[in-house]
């Protein structure tokens, strides 16, 4: 795994992999608000924060596993996440003056 980024040591790789695992745990905790939250906006907000966590997890995995293509996926995911949040908050209001 050290062929793509030769200068990353073993400790750094482990730190990124463990960090990604803890980020996944926090994302699972956020699912409570996405299921339970009373209003539509609560759910959209929880999914938005979860998407930001997913972007960080993808970047961490890209470094930890040595797959630099995961960074491209993270970039696309961040774009789609922002688009999802703005589109849903615009369409839950009838006269969308949100942005």
């Amino acid at each position, binding site marked *: 795994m050290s062929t793509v*980024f030769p*200068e*990353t*040591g073993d*400790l*750094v790789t482990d*730190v*990124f992999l463990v*960090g990604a695992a*803890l*980020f996944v745990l*926090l994302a699972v*905790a*956020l699912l*409570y*608000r996405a299921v339970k*939250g*009373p*209003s*539509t*906006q*609560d759910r*959209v*907000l*929880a999914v*938005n*924060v979860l998407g*930001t*966590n997913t*972007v*960080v997890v993808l*970047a*961490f995995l*890209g*470094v930890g596993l040595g797959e*630099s293509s995961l*960074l*491209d996926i*993270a*970039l696309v995911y*961040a*774009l789609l*996440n*922002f688009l999802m*949040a*703005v589109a849903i*908050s*615009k*369409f*839950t*209001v*009838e*006269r969308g*003056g*949100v*942005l």
Partner: protein
Amino acid sequence: MIEAIRTALIVGCVLAALFFTLVSTAGVLRLPDIYTRAHTASQADTLGAGFGLAAVALSLGWETATVKTVLLLFFIFITNPTAAHAISRAADEQGIEPWRPDDDRSDLRLYRDSQENGHIADGGISADTAGDEERQPPEDGGTNR
């Protein structure tokens, strides 16, 4: 020497990212209404993601992938507060009342009361309550049943 400093900086950035994301998660789970949750989601979570991506950029060094990481960091710094602002603004357009410090209702109760006051239509997509005259806040400061 330089390598040790860089490793320490990477570990510190990952720990800071985990701390701020933990704060943001606790805020989204525990705070009383949508507006305070949007506040913690836009600030603490953006800082957590910023620290995490900074750690990634530090560990990559001078490469093409670093440019992508810095672009991602910049993009998240701009779009995450914008999305939280749009979401809380949509909540305000729907007439969800903000929580007040002298209010001991739960968030579900608060939401149901906002619904009973006729601010929110049942389906979530309001066809008849989107007019400007229906979006006025209640006169008695949101303490009505």
